[in-house]
């Protein structure tokens, strides 16, 4: 096992712990926006997709890259927008009247 992959495993495990710590505190009321928001974050694969679509290595890679960019962009844009749409509906009692 090379050193790089070992560091990657470290980063992964520590980030999981950060995730558990941060997300355990989210109240049930916000579970759906949490899910759609975190779902948008998982669209971070767009970073990899952009590189494939831009490397100019022939039709096969162009197609794979473009499909990946479309899928990831859909995930990112749709996810953040719908989360925003939901969150703007949440309001307290005192906001009315």
């Amino acid at each position: 096992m090379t050193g790089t992959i070992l560091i990657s495993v470290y980063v992964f495990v520590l980030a999981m712990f950060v995730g558990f710590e941060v997300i355990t505190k989210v109240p049930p009321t916000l579970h759906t926006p949490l899910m759609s928001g975190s779902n948008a974050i998982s669209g971070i694969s767009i970073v990899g997709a952009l590189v494939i679509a831009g490397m100019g290595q022939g039709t096969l890679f162009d197609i794979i890259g473009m499909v990946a960019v479309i899928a990831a962009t859909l995930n990112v844009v749709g996810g953040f927008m719908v989360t925003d749409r939901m969150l703007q509906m949440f309001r307290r009692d005192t906001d009315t009247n």
Partner: protein
Amino acid sequence: METRVLIMQLAYLVSAVLFITGLKRLSHPDTARGGNRLAAIGMLLAIVATLVGEQILTWQWIIGGLLIGTVVGGFMARYVKMTAMPQMVGLFNGFGGLASGLVAAAEFLRYSMGVAGTSEVPVDASISIMLGTLIGAVTFSGSLVAFGKLQGIVTEKAVRYPAQQFLNAVLFLGILAAMAYLVVMTPDAIAASDTGTLNIIYYALWGAAMLLGVLLVIPIGGADMPVVVSLLNSYSGLAASAAGFVLNNNVLIISGALVGASGLILTRIMCKAMNRSLANVIFGSFGQVAGKELIKGEKRTMADVNDVQADDVAMLLAYAKQVVIVPGYGLAVAQAQHKLRELCDNLESRGVNVKYVVHPVAGRMPGHMNVLLAEANVPYNQLYEPEDVNPDIANVDACLVVGANDVVNPAARDEPASDLYGMPIIEVDRAKHTVVMKRSLNPGFAGLDNELFYLRNTMMLFGDAADSIGRILEELKQL
């Protein structure tokens, strides 16, 4: 390290920090919207950093992909109905999984087609590619099936056949064998420039992994969908992490791990709310026995039911001190949230104290009912969890159960033989009076009869929830 690459890596670090801060702010309704924006800014930063820092040779596919994805995703996000949120999140999960899987696929083909220009394929890179492919493909096809089930395109019922677990296990072992073969054989095959078989096996791996995704989700019934959507959410994160291992990119690994953790936590909460283990959800056959008999002996009929009219309910509610509303998915189906809120406003103007009690599995995904009520302008501080209300429920004058069934079934507390036994419920049977609004005596999602409907202090108001609430409201206005 080149300056350009260094700047890109630092920008990725800022993105990761923005994601974590954004998720942290999601933990309170007042800061949640800002948190979501922070995360979106982090994503934009990561995209711009990649486009600037990486060597982009062809722009047309990138621009085309970004445009199509933005238009379609934006359109869906803008126009989706709140009731359809679970299937849309499911679909987006699937797209995330697909993108991650394709990143792994491109990396494999780069090696096998000689684009990488080397036969030196490190074992850790190969393993990452295989894992990324497996998780990405399973997430993609599994999410599509979940979407189909929630949308009603695929049957909501659990699809089961003989030796199901055995066949899945065989398929899974086959996939592991193909992955191991590819990891071991790739470097030699590239060195010998004989990668035809290799590519065919890799494509077959994609097919098998997608089939596995379908087979894992298809036996899960409609009632368990909140668990499945949460689990697939977690997978989509792990798929992104796997893609991060493939590309040696920390921002992917970190973001994926955050989402993976979030999905796992929600999965655990959902399982707890149904008092079932994850294994039981995935492999069990819950509530699939059609037409189950009442546990306490004889079959009940309409004659055993205390069937009331809207004016009786209006009287009861108008003179109550404390009213508890138990909304279920049936409320959303009838699109009666807005009418219900009007009813509650009327009661509050009479000095009645109204609380909404939302069971964690009241909708089709975690927190779904809260969003539906927020859409109907119900303030979030009026929403309570079952454990907030149960201890004092005997002092509640009237409980109004709208379109909920299994989450108020006393069998979950009293009948060890019941499939529901042990699931936390809202104990409306202990309140002074309970009104159940329902179309008919049909059993709920779990397919079990409900003793609550036949209790002395339970009143049944039959009909469409929206109509019934409208009629109660009319009667209230005349009181």
